[in-house]
C-alpha cells in the first residue's frame, strides 16, 4: 500500500533568522523562506537578543504566509505544524513557539516540537535522499560544536562537544580581533584564502580525559596573544596569515576528531551540519579525509547549513512518524539537550 504523503509546516526562530518552510515526507522541500536580520545585528557586533525577538514578531506571519504561498498549499492540506523549541535565545524561541501553538490549535493540526541541532543534522536528509542512519555527524555552528552518533532517526548519542567556546564563536572573536567585523566565519574563510595556513603554529587543544571533546578558548587566546605580541614588538601583522593559520587549527582538530569517531565506531558515513559547515576549508578538509579513508561524505549545501526551517521540517517528519506530539503547554527550552525529550 502506498503511504500517504506527510506535509509539515515548520517554523524556526531560535536566533536571528525568522524562517518557515513546507516539507513533504521529511526530504522534499516545497518552500524554504528565511528573513535574515543579520544587517541589523551587524551594527552591534553580534546578535542582540531583544532586537532579534522584536524582529521575529514583526516578520513571522509574512514569512509563514510566504512559505505556504510558495509551496502552493493551505493550512488544511497540512499534517502537522513543527517548531524549534530549543536550544537558542529564549525570547526568540518563544515567538515561534507561541505562533506555532496558536496555528496548531486553530487549525486542529498536531504540534511537533523540534530540537534545533536535530534540525541541523536532518538538513542532510534533504539533498542526500540515500542517507539513512546510522551515521556520524559533526555539528558546528556559532553556538554549538558537537560530534554526534546518529544511531537511528531521532536517536542521538553525543560523542564529543566543546568544553568552552563553540567553533563559530571562536571565528567571531578572532575576526573581531583582526578587525574583520561580524559575522566572523565567512570573513575569515574569505581572507584565509589569501594567506599561508602554516605561517603561524597555533596550538591544537586536546581534552585529556575525553578524546572527542573540543576546546577553542585556548586557541582564541593564542591568537589574541600573538596579535598583542606583534603590536608590542612593532612587528607587522599579516591578517591573511593569521586567519589562515587560525582556521587551519580549528579545521584540523574538527577533522581529526570526526575521522577518529568514524574509525572507532565503524560507521562509515560522515556528515557535516551547522552554519560553520558552510566554511570552505572545513568542507574540503573533511571531504579529503573521507576520500582517503573511503568514507561516504555528506554535507548540506551552504544555504541549508545556516539556520532555516526546511531542516526543522525534515527533523519533524521523523519525529511525527515516531508519534511525537506536543501539547499547548510546550515551552521554549533555551538549553535543551540533544536527545532529550
Amino acid at each position: 500500500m502506498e503511504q500517504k504523503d506527510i506535509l509539515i509546516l515548520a517554523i524556526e526562530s531560535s536566533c536571528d533568522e525568522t524562517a518557515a518552510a513546507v516539507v513533504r515526507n521529511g526530504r522534499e522541500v516545497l518552500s524554504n523562506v528565511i528573513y535574515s536580520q543579520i544587517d541589523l545585528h551587524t551594527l552591534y557586533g553580534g546578535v542582540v537578543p531583544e532586537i532579534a525577538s522584536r524582529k521575529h514578531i514583526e516578520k513571522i506571519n509574512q514569512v509563514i504566509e510566504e512559505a505556504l504561498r510558495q509551496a502552493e498549499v493551505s493550512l488544511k492540506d497540512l499534517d502537522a505544524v513543527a517548531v524549534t523549541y530549543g536550544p537558542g535565545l529564549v525570547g526568540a524561541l518563544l515567538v515561534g513557539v507561541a505562533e506555532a501553538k496558536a496555528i496548531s490549535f486553530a487549525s486542529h493540526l498536531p504540534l511537533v516540537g523540534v530540537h534545533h541541532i536535530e534540525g541541523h543534522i536532518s538538513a542532510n536528509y534533504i539533498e542526500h535522499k540515500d542517507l539513512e542512519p546510522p551515521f556520524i555527524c559533526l555539528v558546528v555552528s556559532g553556538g554549538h560544536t558537537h560530534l554526534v552518533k546518529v544511531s537511528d532517526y531521532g536517536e542521538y548519542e553525543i560523542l564529543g562537544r566543546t568544553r568552552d567556546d563553540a567553533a563559530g564563536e571562536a571565528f567571531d572573536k578572532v575576526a573581531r580581533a583582526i578587525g574583520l567585523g561580524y559575522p566572523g566565519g565567512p570573513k575569515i574563510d574569505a581572507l584565509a584564502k589569501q594567506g599561508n595556513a602554516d605561517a603561524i603554529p597555533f596550538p591544537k587543544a586536546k581534552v585529556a580525559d575525553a578524546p572527542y571533546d573540543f576546546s577553542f578558548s585556548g586557541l582564541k587566546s593564542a591568537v589574541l596573544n600573538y596579535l598583542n605580541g606583534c603590536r608590542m614588538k612593532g612587528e607587522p601583522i599579516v591578517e591573511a596569515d593569521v586567519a589562515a593559520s587560525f582556521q587551519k587549527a580549528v579545521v584540523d582538530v574538527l577533522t581529526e576528531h570526526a575521522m577518529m569517531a568514524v574509525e572507532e565506531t565503524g560507521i562509515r558515513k560522515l556528515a557535516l551540519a551547522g552554519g560553520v559547515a558552510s566554511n570552505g576549508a572545513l568542507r574540503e578538509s573533511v571531504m579529503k579525509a573521507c576520500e582517503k579513508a573511503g568514507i561516504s561524505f555528506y554535507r548540506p549545501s551552504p544555504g541549508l547549513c545556516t539556520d532555516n526551517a526546511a531542516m526543522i521540517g525534515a527533523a519533524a517528519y521523523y519525529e511525527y512518524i515516531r508519534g511525537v506530539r506536543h501539547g499547548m503547554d510546550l515551552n521554549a527550552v533555551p538549553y535543551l539537550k540533544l536527545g532529550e525529550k
Partner: protein
Amino acid sequence: MKIAAIDSSGLVASAAILQDDLILAEYTLCYKKTHSQTLMPMLEEICRMTELDLQSLDAIAVSKGPGSFTGLRIGSATAKGLGLALGKPVIGVPTVDALACNLFGVQDLICPIMDARRNQVYTGLYTFENDSLSVISEQMAVSVNDLAQKINALGRKTVFLGDGVPVYKDMLKDLLTVPFTFAPAGQNRQRAACVARLGMQYLLEGKTETAAEHRPEYLRLSQAERERAEKEKQC
C-alpha cells in the same frame, strides 16, 4: 459579534471569550508558571467549555503593551497565529487602557501602574465620563516622581491599581498630596474580559489590523538601542 481576548503583558495570564455584551468565559491566572505554559492551555480550556467554533469569532483582541517584553510577544504571537490560521483580524488594545476598564463608572482619577523597573512605571490617567472611558493622559513610561507630580497638579482623588502597586505603594504615599486609594482584589490586575470589552468597541469602530501587521507596543527601546543612541549623542 464574538471576540477571543488574551492578556499576558504582566504577571497575570488571562483569556476570555466575549459575545456582544456577555463574557461567555474568562480564565485568569496569577501563578508561578510561565505564560508560555499557561496561556494556550487556558484558551484551549475556555474554548472547549463554551463549545466554541473558532470560525465564529469576528476578531482576536490582545493586550498590545506596554508590559514585559517577552510577555507581550507571547500574547502577540498567539494572536497573530490565531489570526493567520483563522483568517481573522487582530485588535491591539492598549494594556493600561484595559487595566483602567476594571473600574467602570469611577469618576475619580484612575491610575493603573505596572512596574517597568529602573524606578519607572507604565501608567496612564483615566476617568469615566458618561459611562465611557475618558483618557486624560495616554499610556506612557515615567518615573514614579513625575507621575506623582502630575497627579498632584490635577488635584483629584485617585484610585491606583496594577502590579506596580505593591512595589511603589509606600513611595506614592510619601509623594502624593491628593486623597488616594487602591483598588481591591478582582479589580486590580489585568483581565482579558476588559481587553475583550475594549476590543469590541474598537471592532465596532473599525479599529482592527491584519494579523501580519500586528505587533506589540513596547513604549521603550531595547537596552542595546538605547545605549547606542546615547553613545551617538555623546559623539
